[in-house]
């Protein structure tokens, strides 16, 4: 099982991270931007687990961090969607360019 080099996992992780970054920069739909942030978090998770499994000692610190990242991701998507919905109710669009004012 150890025959896949560590660098391959890091390559996939960075590829997914920059795909997510490109999505955040390019897309204008707020929900798609949230999805791309999730992709970036997930790419970081892969790097954490890969380093942890290949380089770490007995304590799987990377996996512990990944569990905390899961919590952060869940909180982020819940609050992010709530903000998007609140903004949508205020002004019915999810295109971030068209949301000019954040007055409540």
């Amino acid at each position, binding site marked *: 099982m*150890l025959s896949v080099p560590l660098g391959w996992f890091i390559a996939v992780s960075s590829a997914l991270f920059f795909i997510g970054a490109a*999505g955040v920069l390019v897309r204008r*739909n707020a929900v*798609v931007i949230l*999805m791309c942030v999730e992709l970036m978090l997930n790419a970081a998770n892969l790097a954490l687990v890969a380093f942890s499994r290949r380089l770490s000692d007995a304590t799987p610190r990377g996996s512990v961090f990944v569990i905390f990242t899961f919590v952060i991701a869940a909180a982020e998507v819940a*609050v992010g*969607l709530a903000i*998007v919905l*609140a903004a949508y109710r205020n002004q019915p669009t999810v295109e971030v360019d068209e949301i000019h004012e954040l007055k409540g």
Partner: protein
Amino acid sequence: MDFIAPLIFVILAAIVVAGGLAVVLLPRITGSALSMGLSFLGMAGLFALLGAETIAFFQVLIYVGAITVLILYGVMLTGVAPAGADRRLFFQKQAGWALVPLKFVGVVATVFALSFQSNVVQQPGGDLEPLANAVFRDYAFPFEVASVLLLAAMIGAIALVKRGDD
């Protein structure tokens, strides 16, 4: 058996990267959300390949299950208009019916080909026991803080979307 792990890795990596690209490139937001679920599923496979089965399990449970569904709720509630006409492939139904028995035969053939002749006895529990020891002993305080954060996020989300006067 040395080529099996890289082969599985390449397939899973292709799923992850293609899913991620589809999230960014697909014009329809529902397609983006479902591609994100596919990408997360491939990522769970990569975690399992790394030997972190518990993380793979949580990945399926939280990312593929909860977060994808939450995003789909967001898509539904923001009411994005469907773009253009029905763009289903012409042979989609027939291809679906053909693909399922093909995959079933493939899985069964793989099972009989491998016939579980691995003589490596896995440690019972896998990575769950060291992970649980680390989370609940060394990182017990951050764990509690994380639960407080989740509670705060839940209350915050409810407060943000609550309608004004009722």
